[in-house]
């Protein structure tokens, strides 16, 4: 069953604006990851945030994690047309021997030049 749920399902912004996507999940996690998927391609890993971290940055990406609310957000600053893609959150559940990532249905981001 799908654990992560992204919100919104689709987002359209102008180039240069910031884009914020949210993810909610249900169980205890070891970490949460964000991935990007360009049309017709595989997923590309963007960033991993561990359950004991609250915020992480990578270039124009900023990820926050609130384990008390079981939610995460991905902020892309100063968006570019090349950021147009679908973005997925994936949760790694806590527990010995845990291996599986559970992906949400994604947010489709369109950045208009």
């Amino acid at each position: 069953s799908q654990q992560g749920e992204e919100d919104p399902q689709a987002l359209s912004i102008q180039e240069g604006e910031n884009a914020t996507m949210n993810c909610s999940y249900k169980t205890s996690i070891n970490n949460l990851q964000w991935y990007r998927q360009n049309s017709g391609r595989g997923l590309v890993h963007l960033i991993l945030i561990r359950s004991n971290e609250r915020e992480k940055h990578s270039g124009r990406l900023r990820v926050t994690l609130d384990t008390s609310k079981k939610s995460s957000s991905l902020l892309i600053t100063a968006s570019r047309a090349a950021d147009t893609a679908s973005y997925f959150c994936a949760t790694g559940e806590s527990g010995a021997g845990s291996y599986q990532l559970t992906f949400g249905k994604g947010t489709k981001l369109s950045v208009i030049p």
Partner: protein
Amino acid sequence: GAGVSQSPSNKVTEKGKDVELRCDPISGHTALYWYRQSLGQGLEFLIYFQGNSAPDKSGLPSDRFSAERTGGSVSTLTIQRTQQEDSAVYLCASSKTYSNQPQHFGDGTRLSIL
């Protein structure tokens, strides 16, 4: 190449035929995963390999689906007696170890059943 390679990239076949999809993971990655992605949807987990063994086959949709991995490297996903509902993109990913690590994806095989 350095990435995960999948073949074929596209496969069109008639209902009832068997198909075999191939995944070549990143060298040295012990964990390998198969997912299915239907149009506009998220990823549905199918099966996971740790080395050559598959501890979890619970995601396979039916007994028509099987997978194997040999030499801790290449994996094949076989679908027998294909049905139209099998049409989807089949994605393979690998990671260094099996414990919630970042996964590296291939570009998938787009399977269309006529």
